[in-house]
Structure formats: structure tokens, C-alpha cells
């Protein structure tokens, strides 16, 4: 739709639809307000005291009239509801090829991990036109991830993942806000979302996020390893293999993880659980809550051992363990007895990186977050310079 005054850039497919609905609602508001206002003022003026008009048989009740202004608004409201709900469901319909990015909110910064290993704070770089799915969780209080130009926000809660899906349609630099009051520095918990052309994004990613791509955009450095590789190293470090490697699985130490992701698992207490990100996280943190049918819960809880970020990395690794043809179905359902070797971490990297181009990027340091107490630094980073769309 055309450019209207005061209308912020509509930078996502969702935004266009929302604006259409929004301005229809504006029209309705104007119409009803003026209708009521004009009517009551006109009547009041006409029947002002002292004005000689016919006041014979003043009516004080008329069911027909009442119904005539009660019923139509109901249908009007229902119509708006259905339209609005139709748009709303888009925000939940995540396509398969959505580029997955992981967000951890903490007082008072956004920590973002790309699947290709690049990590940034208070900044998010994404290519235009590619569907993006953010998987978000909070370390402390409730936050909300809000990008006005996408017309989208979602609360980021402690203890459970919430997801945030959109497809950017305009390149530019957009505000990223925390929109749920989260404490003293609430108004400084934010930064910028950079929507870049595909070429720019390639360059940015290839340089491990170190190449400045947008005016005012401070360079990010990469973690070098992909998420999958980090996950693999954690897998080694915490000796997950002692129970989940094929040999151990043979000995009945633990269920195999190969091809686990996305499968449905039968739990001992009758639950059927889809092994999604949330399930993997919960099993790592609260294994006893998910007793797998046919297995004693021997797995320790890694709560306090693994940070939310590391959990995300291990999840990425587990996702990368794809079964080969003859092993499909291994490790799912009750009591797996045979399982195959997990794909070694290094080889798993290309699979795990979700088709992101820059797996072999160099550099190894996470960009330092602006210290929470230096208000003006973060203030300049967050609000300095004009926001630009195109």
C-alpha cells in the first residue's frame, strides 16, 4: 500500500497486511466517532432549550431501533476478527526452509547466535527475502522482542522457548526494542536489525560479521566454529557419548540420538512428545521429567552446568545427527537397542549449518557487550543516527 504520513517502513510481509487492517480500523473509528459526534451535536443543537421545535410524543423506547444498532456491529466485529485472525496465523506458519537464529534475552541485552556460528549482541544481521525464525528464551525476567518495522513482537520468557517468524522484505536498519518492562535499563535494552541484500549478507557472513555493512553498524566478530561444531565439542566435553554413542546404546546405557530431532517419542508415563527444541532443552535440564519408555532415567540434569546458549548449540548438534537409510527410526519410540554411529562432528558441520554459507569463517572472539552501566554508550548505539528504510 502507498506511503501514508506517519507510516513507518513496512519491512516484512506481515507488516503490509497488518497496516491494511490497521487503516481499515482507522476508517471505522473515524466513521463511528463522527457519526455519533455529529448526530448528538446536531440533535442537541436542534432541541436546545428555547428552540421552537416539535417535541410531541417523545419516544423513549424502540426495540426495532435498538436491534438495528445492536446486531450489525456484532457482524462487523466478527468480520474484523476473522480477517485479523487470518493475518495473525501467518506469524505461526513457519516454513521449512526458515533460517533459524537463536536469541537469548538477559538484563539488559539481546544475545544472538547465528547457525553459522556468528554471535552478536544487540544487533541482528539478516538477508532480505529469506524467511527467518527466531527461537528465543530469557535468562532472567520476561522480555519482549519487538521490531516495529516488522509489526511484530513476542514475549521472551524464562524457562520456555518462544518463537518469532518473519520474512524481511526491505533492506535497511531498523530498531530492535525490548518491549516488556524488564528493569532499570529497560529502555536501553535494544539495538538494530540490519536487513541486507543477499550479496551484502554473503560478504558480511563470509567476513564472520566483521565487515561493516550499514552506516553506524558496528562490526561483529565471529565465533569461528559453527553451532553444530560447538555442540559437538560440548557433546565430547560432557561425555554424552558414554551413554548415547552406538557402543553405549548397544550396551543399553542410553537411547540413541540419531535422527531423534522431530520424531515423536513415547514416554513411560504415556505421554507422546515431539522431540523439538523445547523437548531437547527440557531433557538436558530436567531429564527426570521425561522418562523415556523402556529406560530408567539415568541422565543427570545439566541445569546450572550448561548455559542456555550451550543448550542451543547441543541441540544444533543433535539435529545434525541424521540417520542413514537402514537406520531410520533408530532411537525413537521405546527402548532403542540398535543405533548407528552419529555423524562425526566435523563432517556434521555442513549439514548442521542450515545451508548458511560461511561455515569456515575465521576469528574466534565474541563481540563485547556494551557494559550495562555505561548508559550513554548504549544510548548512542541504540538511538544514535536516523533510522533508514528505502
Amino acid at each position, binding site marked *: 500500500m502507498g506511503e501514508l504520513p506517519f507510516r513507518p517502513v513496512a519491512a516484512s510481509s506481515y507488516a503490509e497486511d497488518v497496516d491494511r487492517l490497521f487503516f481499515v480500523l482507522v476508517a471505522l473509528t473515524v466513521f463511528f466517532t463522527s457519526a455519533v459526534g455529529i448526530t448528538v451535536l446536531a440533535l442537541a443543537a436542534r432541541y436546545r432549550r428555547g428552540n421552537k421545535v416539535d417535541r410531541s410524543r417523545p419516544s423513549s423506547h424502540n426495540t426495532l431501533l435498538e436491534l438495528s444498532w445492536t446486531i450489525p456491529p456484532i457482524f462487523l466485529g466478527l468480520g474484523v476478527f476473522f480477517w485479523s485472525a487470518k493475518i495473525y496465523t501467518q506469524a505461526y506458519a513457519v516454513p521449512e526452509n526458515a533460517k533459524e537464529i537463536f536469541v537469548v534475552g538477559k538484563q539488559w541485552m539481546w544475545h544472538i547466535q547465528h547457525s553459522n556460528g556468528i554471535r552478536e549482541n544487540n544487533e541482528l544481521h539478516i538477508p532480505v527475502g529469506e524467511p527467518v525464525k527466531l527461537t528465543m528464551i530469557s535468562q532472567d525476567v520476561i522480555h519482549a522482542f519487538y521490531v516495529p518495522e516488522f509489526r511484530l513482537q513476542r514475549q521472551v520468557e524464562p524457562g520456555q522457548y518462544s518463537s518469532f517468524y518473519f520474512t524481511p522484505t526491505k533492506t535497511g536498519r531498523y530498531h530492535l526494542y525490548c518491549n516488556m518492562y524488564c528493569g532499570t535499563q529497560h529502555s536501553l535494552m535494544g539495538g538494530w536489525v540490519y536487513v541486507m541484500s543477499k550479496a551484502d549478507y554473503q560478504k558480511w557472513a563470509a567476513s564472520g560479521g566483521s565487515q561493516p555493512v550499514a552506516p553506524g553498524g558496528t562490526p561483529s566478530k565471529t565465533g569461528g566454529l559453527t553451532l553444530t561444531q560447538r555442540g559437538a565439542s560440548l557433546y565430547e566435553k560432557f561425555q554424552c557419548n558414554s551413554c548415547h554413542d552406538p557402543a553405549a546404546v548397544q550396551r543399553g546405557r542410553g537411547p540413541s540420538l540419531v535422527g531423534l530431532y522431530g520424531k515423536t517419542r513415547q514416554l513411560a*508415563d504415556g505421554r507422546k512428545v515431539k522431540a523439538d527444541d523445547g523437548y531437547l532443552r527440557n531433557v538436558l535440564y*530436567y*531429564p*527426570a*521429567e521425561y*522418562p523415556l519408555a523402556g529406560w530408567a*532415567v*539415568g*541422565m543427570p*540434569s545439566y541445569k546450572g552446568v550448561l548455559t542456555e546458549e550451550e543448550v542451543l548449540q547441543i541441540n544444533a548438534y543433535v539435529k545434525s545427527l541424521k540417520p542413514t537409510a537402514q537406520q531410520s527410526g533408530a532411537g525413537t519410540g521405546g527402548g532403542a537397542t540398535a543405533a548407528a554411529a552419529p555423524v562425526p562432528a566435523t563432517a556434521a558441520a555442513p549439514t548442521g549449518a542450515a545451508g548458511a554459507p560461511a561455515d569456515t569463517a575465521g576469528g574466534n572472539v565474541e563481540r563485547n557487550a556494551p557494559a550495562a552501566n555505561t548508559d550513554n554508550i548504549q544510548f548512542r548505539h541504540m538511538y544514535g543516527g536516523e533510522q533508514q528504510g528505502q
Partner: protein
Amino acid sequence: MSLRAVTAAASAAATRGNGDHHADDHGGVMTPTLYHQFEDVEQQNESYLVGMWTFLVTEIMFFGALFMAYSIYRTAYPATFLDAHKFLSIPLGTVNTLALLTSSFTMVMAVNANQHKKKWSLINWLGVTILLSCVFLGIKGIEYTTKIHEGLYPGSFNYARANTMYLEHHDGKAGHEAKGIYPYFPSVQELATGYSLNRITPEDPRAVGVEQTPAGPFTSYQGAPSDVEYWSKRAQLFFSIYFAMTGLHAVHIIIGILMMGTLILLALKNHPYITQDYMPTEMIGLYWHFVDIVWIFLFPLMYLIS
């Protein structure tokens, strides 16, 4: 308190009620004080009734929110609730329920006595009611102390320790099928010497660690210490709700006892509220029955999870 005891007390009360020949006894017209805003006594009494019921509606919502939280978490963590409730004693819960039901009965008898202007029988019935509610509070206190001795109080839950202590007093069996006295009552000198507290400390090797953790109520969750810790956390949710609801309920009981005590004093002083009116007793009776109803729901939800 058994049924026989109650009926005995009742008959005793009745005899004494008939026995006394007090001036304002044996029927006679009740002439309650009529407050200036009311037209007649009937309007006044009905206003009291409607007002009390309106207040009870707010009380229902007051507890209702807690029941809502309970049911949401129970549906969320059925296994936790199933395990954690084993720390509650069914016998004690049953006795408490019995006590409250009986006290409801004695309360209506008190109201009845007041309506028929039997002063002493009123006092006796109220006395029995107060006695029963004190029994309830006493048992509730024992339960709380047991929880605290087992380390189950909010904030510092130590389930490894709870497990271990538990087993020591239940010959290695978990839950209600444990033989012997349950729950563990600390004797006076034990309480004095802090017996069970210095017996097993959280640092005790039996209390932590996988190999040492014996099969307690959390028997299906053998695992690393962190695992037991995790279960402590989850079961804290159950005990948080348990302490919140029973605590709130106990507060209501205490208020009820105070009000009934006031009634007895008024009766002893032949106050017109008692001699010329029965609405005060009726109101407090309504309140008391409400407290009883809350417990009727609390008991199966907290103690009888199966």
C-alpha cells in the same frame, strides 16, 4: 475425635442445656436490636444473610484462585505431585477432616440452641466446636513440624535428606505402605535436643550423591545429585501450594476460633446479641461451614493424589 465422643459431648451438652433454668430460657419472643436504617427485623435479618453470602462469594474466589493454580500445576507435573504428596500423612489428614466435619455439625447445633434460647447448650456446642478446631490446628502444627524436620519447608528443600530420614523411620519402605508409625513424630526430648536435625545433615554422605541415595519416595528418579536437586525444585512447587493453601485455611480457622470465643463471652454476659438475637451466631456459623467446605476440597486434592 471419634463419633462416639462427639455424641457423648452432645448428649452432655443437651442434658445441661435442659438442666439450667435461666431467666431468658425456654422460648419467649426474641426482640433483636433494630438498627435505624432498617424497617423491620425481617429486613434486617435478610440483609445480614445476603451480606454474609456476598462475602462468602469473595472468599470462594479468594481460595478459588489458589485452587486454579493448583490444578494447572498438577496437570502440568502429575508425577511430581504424585511423589511429593507421599510426604503428607493420610491418617492425620483423615482425622483432621473428621474433626472439621464434626465441628460443622456442632456449629449448626449451636445455632439451633441459640434459636431456641438454650444458653448453656449454645455455650457447650460452641465449646465443642472450638475444641475440635483446636484439634485440627494441633494436628496441622504437628504436620508442619514434621515437614520442617524433614527439611521440606519452603526455601530450603533438601529432598536427598528428606529421603534418607524418611527411610530411617519407615524401615526402608517409601510412601504409605511403610510399616510403623507414620509420620515421624519427634518426641519431646528429641525436639529439645534437635534430634532429627543434627542426626542427618545435608553434608551427610547419605544425603547427597547417587550411590548413597536410597530408594525413597523419589524412587523412580535415581540419578545424579543434580537430579535429586531438580526433584527438590519441582516438589517445592507442590509444597509451595500446600503451604499457601493450608496456611491460608489455617488463618481462617484461627479467625473462626476467635469469633466463636467472642460468642461464648457474649453468651456468658447475657448480651442481647445472644439472648435477643441469633443472627450473630448464624453468621459465624455460615463462615465456619465455608471453612469446612474449603477443607472438604483440600483434603482429597492434597493428601489423596493417586
